[in-house]
């Protein structure tokens, strides 16, 4: 638990984690923060950084990197550098919409289902488990076709991509929050509230909600990286956003596949590297936070060296900070 006598800034998720990290773990966390910040800055200032618009086409196609086009151009005559930069913006939009949509539904369902139990809980669990175990990409594709039906405006594309990803995320949030709720329900402090006669609504709102959602910043980070991968996969398979609506890394990689066979490397390597770097940054950030939350996985300074800071008391989080199935512990 964050101590309330610390200034607010010390208790914010990422900053409090930075304070208690040491050595290699700190290095990984810092790398994650730097890459993620770079990604966000690129997205925010895309209009200033990119020399051209994302849908701007040039008569020179498949031109190798040059002064005018530092990362070259594609077969369709797009500037690779500009599209890679604008792609960051699209990715951020999709992450924000997808996570916002799924977080509210997932948390509410998980809380109610976990606390009340009964038939509703059993049905929701079976449904969530079925979706959770299924290749998420396939559901996202079908969902995307169902929503967009060939529609390709920028926000239309972003929303359809985001909603497709949401279908996959809701069960994840649901599972995490439900598991936490069930664990907390057996905690003496919740039973203490039960024996004094607190109503179910009061217990959920006052005692469980805040304690169950402590891991959310972490899930958010890990899911953000999954959202980027899903978005790119949709684009790669041709079920994503049209190039004229927004820049999207997956779409560009799709078109770069044939280029690669001909030895034209620049059309694929840059958007691909952008995906890898962004996902790497977000995952480093999320995993480091996960480890720091879990006392078992947290590295500590060796004694004898002067402490850097005097940060917060350790707060054991649920041991299974297994948030997405990819990182499941």
């Amino acid at each position, binding site marked *: 638990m964050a101590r309330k006598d610390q200034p607010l800034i010390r208790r914010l998720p990422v900053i409090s984690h930075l304070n208690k990290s040491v*050595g*290699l*773990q700190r290095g*990984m966390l810092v790398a994650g923060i730097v890459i993620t910040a770079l990604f966000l800055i690129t997205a925010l200032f895309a209009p200033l950084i990119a020399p051209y618009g994302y849908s701007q086409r040039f008569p020179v196609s498949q031109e190798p990197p040059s002064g005018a086009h530092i990362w070259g151009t594609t077969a369709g005559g797009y500037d690779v550098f500009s599209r890679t930069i604008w792609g960051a913006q699209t990715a951020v939009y999709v992450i924000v919409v997808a996570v916002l949509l799924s977080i509210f539904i997932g948390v509410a369902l998980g809380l109610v289902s976990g606390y009340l139990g009964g038939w509703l809980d059993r049905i929701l669990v*079976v449904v969530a488990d*079925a*979706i*959770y*175990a*299924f*290749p*998420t*990409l*396939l*559901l996202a*594709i*079908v969902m995307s*076709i*169902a*929503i967009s*039906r060939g529609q390709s405006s920028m926000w239309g594309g972003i929303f359809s991509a985001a909603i497709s990803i949401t279908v996959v995320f809701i069960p994840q949030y649901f599972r995490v929050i439900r598991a936490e709720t069930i664990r907390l329900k*057996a905690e003496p402090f919740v039973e203490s509230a*039960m024996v004094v006669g607190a109503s*179910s609504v009061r*217990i959920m709102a006052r005692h469980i909600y805040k304690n169950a959602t402590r891991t959310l910043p972490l899930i958010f980070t890990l899911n953000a*990286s999954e959202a980027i*991968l899903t978005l*790119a*996969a949709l684009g*790669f*398979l*041709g*079920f994503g956003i049209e190039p004229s609506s927004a820049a999207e890394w*997956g779409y560009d*990689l*799709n078109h*770069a*596949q044939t280029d*690669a*066979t*001909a*030895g034209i*490397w620049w059309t*694929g*390597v840059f958007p*691909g590297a952008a*995906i*890898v770097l962004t*996902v*790497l940054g977000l*995952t*480093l950030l999320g*995993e480091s936070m996960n480890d720091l939350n879990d006392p*078992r*996985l947290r590295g500590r300074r060796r004694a004898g060296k002067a402490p850097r800071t005097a940060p917060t008391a350790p707060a054991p989080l649920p041991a299974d900070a*297994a948030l997405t*199935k*990819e*990182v499941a*512990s």
Partner: protein
Amino acid sequence: MTTLIEAPPEDGELLPLKKSKSGGGLGKYLLIRFLLIFPTIFILVTLVFFLMRITGDPITAALGDRLPPDQLAQRIHEAGYDRPVLVQYFEYLGQIATGNFGRTISDNLLVTDMLATYGAATLELAINALVVALVVGIPLGMLAAYKRDKWPDAVLRVVAILFYATPVFFAGLLLKLVFSVGLGWLPVAGRAKTANEIALNQLASPTGIYWLDALRSGNMAALGDVAQHAVLPAIALGLLTGGVFLRLVRTNVIGTLNKDYVEAGRSRGVSEYRLVTKHAYKPALIPIITVMGLQIALLLGGAVLTETTFEWKGLGFQLAHYLTARDFVAVQGIVALLAVIVALTNFIVDVVAALIDPRVRY
């Protein structure tokens, strides 16, 4: 509603499956676990059925811009796509319950034949990739746990994240650039050279798994060719899954390394190496196997992308094609098969995990 909850008995002495000498405990568990397969399949089939109906009908998707509206409506009526969705849904459920999956709309194949043909290719890819993933993930995961919080651990963790962070189609592109275009060692795409493919398909009762067919017919030239084609897709998909396995093994082994029984082994002089590979690894195996089962989803999802990247003509490759054509029948058939595979895999994995655990066995 009530706030009564069933708390476990005070000291948790009795394990749920402990006294299963009569065979009741474990047997009943397996039965219940097996019955859970059906709702899983049912939910997924239903979900995809209704989602596909929202996307429109296959006749319009295929011929919408070529036929005048009245003819189009006529064709839709003939195919029965203008009836209420629920009627179509129950008709569909009735059909699949009797094993009748119908014919694909776009290329008029029996869905069962289509699944058998392309399913073999996907199975081959999945097996190859799984071998790569296990060979990479398990030893490296143990190494990372052994060296936890030291630099080899940090390096391995970043490598694992890189494997996971690299989409298969980008990994494929890089592999092609280096090994096919740059070095010219391996083919760019496909499962085998056309001549070999024809030869293998003409065998009596082919399995469709090329290396198996080549081995059975003793066609060593074809086997070499098939192996060459298999390398890059297996690596692209295998490393993705392997990265996840690495993290999975590392996290769980570190978890059990902190247990008292490992400390107890240490207090008797057991070496750190043996503590990791035996004392900590075997108890960790139970959650590892369970979660590995869930990775079947990642593997199948990745297979769709891998097949498209390497023009590997399996279910994933075909799925993308059928989706574009709004071929309901084909898509639903593929999804139903995948749902069965997912549900069965998870069932088998749970059974294996239960059998490893002596607390369940005895």
